[in-house]
């Protein structure tokens, strides 16, 4: 086992904490990043000979801070560059720094680091790219590959995002309780978007984008480490784990989406499901439900069902109802209609879907579901129209193929 492999792991793990503390110190994203890079280079030189420090993050913060100061001084030609030897004895200083940088402070630092990436002026894709670069430490190439764009384009996107953030300034004051909760909400949403970028992919690009799901889970874990008693953060991590647990089963060999009820449940990741279920159970004990917890609870009911038939649709319909109350949205109502179909039948489901036609007129799933409901009611002409509209809106070959099968069946029924 090489030292370098261990060091790489330790540097990656310490990154959010260290960059976050350096950002507080330098109040500038670029300087903080440079200082961290510098500290990493020194770690690669020092740690193999001195052995790993007890608190890698504290070591990196201290060294990064000194090196950053060096760089600034160098630029201003004020004082000569400090000797490397001055940094060699970090034993006491490290312990002292670790003590000073207590948990509470780290928490606000890391939250701030994630929060500046979510600046409202930035479009979602830039927020995500920035967070992956700055917080997760992915390389520009890795991010470019995940977003299916060229390295140069991604480099520019990140540079632009950074400039926008720098212009806006970083909020340095320690947040109050309300502000902290607001920041947490914004950051959770960003983490969820990172996940969705990876999760919504299909086809040849799906494997390439899967890295985003893993990173989102890492970020959600980091958030939960910072806010260990926040039920919505537990819900978010549970939701991501439970959805990601199905990843091996949800795409076929050609990368086409396999519907939940057709998935080989043996391919689901048992370990991720166990962790997700434990987390949602923990969250529910707090009796402070929120959208992430409810979505996770729905995912948990699917995960607990050994077969599609064993799914507790009645409970799922109730949970969607609850979600609708908290966050009214036609898409949620549409999802509820699917559960209602299983519990109360076709007519009840159609009654929920019909009023959504105007607001979700451009939505593939609305027309797909509506077509299937009408088909079951024997209203073939209307069903065909709905399916045709769905095909026009389909976003992937798998969706087209799925609707084609419906249309073929309709045609056969008419011939018979």
């Amino acid at each position, binding site marked *: 086992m090489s030292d370098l492999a261990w060091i790489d792991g330790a540097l990656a793990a310490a990154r959010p904490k260290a960059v976050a503390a350096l950002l507080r110190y330098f109040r500038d994203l670029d300087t903080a990043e440079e200082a961290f890079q510098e500290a990493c280079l020194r770690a690669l030189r020092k740690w193999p000979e001195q052995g790993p420090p007890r608190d890698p993050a504290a070591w990196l913060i201290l060294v990064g801070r000194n090196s950053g100061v060096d760089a600034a001084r160098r630029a201003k030609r004020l004082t000569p560059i400090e000797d490397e030897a001055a940094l060699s004895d970090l034993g006491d200083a490290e312990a002292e720094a670790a003590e000073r940088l207590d948990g509470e402070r780290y928490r606000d630092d890391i939250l701030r680091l994630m929060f500046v990436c979510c600046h409202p002026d930035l479009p979602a894709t830039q927020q995500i790219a920035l967070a992956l670069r700055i917080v997760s430490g992915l390389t520009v190439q890795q991010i470019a590959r995940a977003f299916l764009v060229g390295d140069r384009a991604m480099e520019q996107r990140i540079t632009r995002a950074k400039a926008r953030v720098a212009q806006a300034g970083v909020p340095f004051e320690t947040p109050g309780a309300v502000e902290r909760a607001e920041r947490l909400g914004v950051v959770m949403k960003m983490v969820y978007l990172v996940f969705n970028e990876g999760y919504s992919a299909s086809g040849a690009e799906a494997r390439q984008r899967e890295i985003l799901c893993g990173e989102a889970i*890492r970020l959600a874990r980091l958030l939960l*480490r910072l806010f260990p*008693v926040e039920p919505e953060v*537990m819900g978010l991590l549970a939701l991501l784990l439970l959805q990601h647990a199905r990843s091996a089963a949800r795409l076929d060999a050609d990368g086409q989406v396999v519907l939940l009820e057709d998935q080989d449940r043996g391919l689901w990741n048992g370990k991720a499901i166990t962790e997700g279920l434990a987390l949602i159970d923990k969250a529910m004990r707090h009796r402070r439900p929120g959208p992430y917890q409810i979505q996770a609870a729905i995912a948990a009911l699917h995960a607990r069902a050994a077969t599609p038939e064993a799914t507790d649709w009645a409970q799922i319909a109730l949970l969607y109802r609850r979600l609708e109350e908290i966050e009214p949205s036609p898409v949620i109502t549409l999802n509820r209609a699917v559960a209602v179909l299983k519990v109360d039948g076709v007519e009840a489901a159609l009654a929920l879907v019909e009023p959504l036609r105007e607001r979700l007129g451009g939505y593939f799933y609305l027309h797909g579901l509506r077509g299937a409901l009408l088909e079951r009611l024997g209203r073939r002409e209307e069903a065909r129209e709905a399916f045709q509209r769905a095909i026009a809106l389909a976003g992937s070959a798998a969706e087209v193929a799925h609707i084609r099968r419906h249309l073929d069946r309709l045609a056969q029924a008419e011939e018979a």
Partner: protein
Amino acid sequence: MLYAILCYDSEDAVSSWPKEKDDEVMARLGAILDRVEAEGRLGPVARLLPTTAATTVRKGGEQLVLDGPFAETKEQLLGFYVVDVESLDEAIALARELGQAVGSGGAHEVRPIGHFRAPRSAG
């Protein structure tokens, strides 16, 4: 003598291993455990899920239920092995071997077991 070998490490670091590295480490540990098992000296082995999934139930009075692991430290209890060995030296040697196979920081705590009960289904 029964010993528990408790594995402590930085959860942050271990959980940031890429899958290939994790698989590699588990394979190396597996090879050691296969040998110990063939010698008839291996008891239960567990790798624990992250501490974020942990709940702590305090003993005494109110029996408070708290989110998170018992102790917030730089290194966390990530798993354990139960082994049947002749001496402490042997347990330490085994802990060293396991530590080398993992190759990260952290520590193995070697603790003699006073009372041990295995479920009837096991073994």
